[in-house]
């Protein structure tokens, strides 16, 4: 299973990277979101996918899945949500003010 997961993570990274390399600001945002997903899956995979119980002690099991990566991913989800929202509004404002979302047109001027 880990092999499949690793490949899936690789695909998510590849698509995310490809989108980030494009000219459109929106696609770049989509790319960062996909990268985030890839990272979360990677975190989960790295902790081992051995099946165990849900990490709730009330279940009275002997074997639980590792709770630590889940906590890390939870933190990461919230942070990336905050960052993505901010980035998104930034893109929206940039488009409003500058009238374009083409990164080639948003290049710095030569004298700067």
């Amino acid at each position: 299973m880990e092999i499949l997961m690793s490949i899936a993570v690789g695909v998510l990274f590849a698509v995310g990277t490809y989108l980030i390399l494009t000219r459109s600001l929106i696609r770049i945002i989509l790319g960062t979101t996909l990268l985030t997903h890839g990272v979360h899956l990677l975190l989960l995979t790295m902790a081992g996918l051995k099946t165990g119980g849900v990490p709730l002690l009330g279940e009275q099991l002997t074997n639980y899945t590792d709770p630590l990566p889940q906590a890390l991913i939870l933190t990461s989800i919230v942070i990336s949500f905050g960052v993505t929202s901010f980035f998104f509004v930034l893109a929206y404002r940039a488009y409003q003010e500058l009238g374009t979302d083409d990164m080639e047109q948003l290049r710095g001027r030569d004298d700067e």
Partner: protein
Amino acid sequence: MSLLHFAILIPFVVAAAAPLFYKYIPKVHTGWFVLPVPLYLFVYFLMQLSTVRTGDGVQATVPWIPSLDIAFTVVLDGLSLIFALLITGIGALVVLYSIYYLDKDKEAIHRFYLYLLLFMGAMLGVVLSDNLVVLYGFWELTSLSSFLLIAFWYRRTKSRYGAQKSMLITVFGGFAMLAGIILLYLMTGTFSIREIIAQAGALPGQDLFLPAMILLLIGAFTKSAQFPFHIWLPDAMEAPTPVSSYLHSATMVKAGLYLVARLTPVFGGAAEWFWLVSAVGLLTLLWGSVSAIRHTDLKAILAFSTISQLGLIMTLLGLGSAALYYGIGDAGNVYVIAITAAVFHLINHATFKGALFMVVGIVDHETGTRDIRYLGGLMTLMPVSFTMALIGTFSMAGIPPFNGFLSKEMFFTAVLHASQMDFFSMQTWGILFPVLAWIASVFTFIYSMIIVFKTFTGKFQPDKLDKTPHEAPVGMLISPVILVSLVVVFGLFPNILSYTLIEPAMASILPSLLSPGDYFEVKISMWHGWQPELFMTLGIFILGTLLYLSLRSWRSVYQLIPEKWSLNHLYDSGLKLLERGSLGITRTYMTGSIRQYFVYIFGFFAIILLYSLFKLGAFQITADSYAEISVYEVLLLAAMIFAAVAIPFVNSRLTAIILLGAVGYLMTTFFVVLRAPDLALTQMIVETVSVTLFLLCFYHLPKLKKEISAPKFKITNLIISIGVGVTVTLLALSANGSRLFDPIADFFIKESYNLAGGNNMVNVILADFRGFDTWLEVMVLGVASLGIYSLIKLRMAEPLPLEGGSKREDQ
């Protein structure tokens, strides 16, 4: 702290006070307050003559950075004393001269004296320091103060150009020297020159010996304007004349000679040292004297003459180092005379060159020009200056009875001895020494004659001068008169110097040749019989006079050498090339396109990781610990990958957002399958909010256009993104394959309830075990929301203007 330390520090203290004098006592020329400093120091150093003569050099240490073996140790021996006397003595004369040269109402003299005293202190520091790092510090300070003094009239382009050039070249040499010092430290374990000299026997043959020597010599050559680093000196002539006289003839340019003499006990006796020092010196001597004739500006001629004379002293130091090769005995003693000549000429050159610069300054001051084409016939108008110029130039040309004659004779003796050497492959090349030296002396004779006779004799051209020339004020004449008197006194009675100054200096340059209580024999006499040297001198006079008289007919030879070949042109175009080159390189990769930068980042990431992964053999897959594959998970995964891969291909905003939402919700189901309920919950909520936000904003955003990048870019992007994906996959697989230790999950499973009183382990970790993460994550969300709020709410009245100017005052 000893008096010697104070001798170095006093100039710095007075330097800080100079602007105060200027401000609060404006009626008196600030120079008068500065003058006592060098005078006092000169007297102080004179009083040290007897202690140094008996061999008991003054030595004192103040700890500075003890952990790095750096102490402010000062040592006064024969060599230091000569330099200290030159620095303070000529310093006093130059200050006196400058009082009359610089107008206190028209010039910023407080800055002038500040810089000058800074230089004086730094120069004293260079010659008195025993610790190489301290020496280097003072060394750079002389470069800095020289830079400031050259650009004293900073509104002139040429001053700034000259200052920058001298700064670049001397600091380049300074850095090389620092590297050499460090190499010396690596070999000997000490920064103290005395201790290094004590270990000198063990140095030759070490790997770092030659690099250290070359680096230190680069430092000495750049400072002393040796070929090919001499080009800064003529441009430094934009400085006020007292500065040229002091720094660029008598003191600073001799710092390199000081360094060479100081390190002769360390490196002398090695063939490389001998060849480098004497050959570069000889080349400089020849080049400087031949180039001097090309120029018509008196200061430029004097600059090239300084270069050439410095080369002469450098040659002598190089030849004298052969004495260390031969050691004690008759064979070595022949070369000791080269060191005698070097030290003697060092003093002589300081006297006559200082005087000549001052005379040129007077001429400039009284006529308004320094160009010999406009000058002439000043002899009757300025008789005192003429006399001084006559004595100075005759001494420089080596005409008896002045001191230049004596040192030139000794120079010829030294090169004649050198041509008979039988080591360092001198058999083949040795004959070049006297020949080249002789040719250079002929040219020295010619330009000396040009300086004095083109200026003071010939036709007086009052219509070409801005001012009506007349003799300078007495105050201005005092300093050059004193120097010129010294020229005559040293010429007629050279032996007042021999055991007071020259012998102790030789003892510190060649310490290993003396047994305790022994001393060198120094004999300098005007008449030494019909020796070959005398015939060489006579030849110089005859040929020099003939060439001078026929100057007009052959001077045009210089025009044959195009400007393109000159070293100045090389320097200028090199600098320009460097500037353009770096600008060009920066322009090629700093394109301003964010895509380009991402290409660098991702490309570098993929390449470096893949390379190290395979180079270090870290890639491995061990299948034994993998979880089994379930159909349900595979299907979810396949759906997610399909949705993700489709995103780049769609050209509709809505489809893209739905596909992204699909990926997010599939992640949610994945979390459910992988037994992470909290994650599933959060992911679902976040995904919903994000999609909502996206939909809200997308309404206002432009339609997704089809990517219109060139196919070349698309292919590059594809390669890089696939590279990144493959890298991540391989990394994940290898990392999974090697589990080094058990996870700490057991702790949380065991202690969640006991320590934190909670059953939900993930929540307990978030809020209890690792609460800081959560706290800061809340901060992140808060900051993000504040940022979004201010982005939406705060608007500037109008967009920033595209062309220049800041809008700050509008806000």
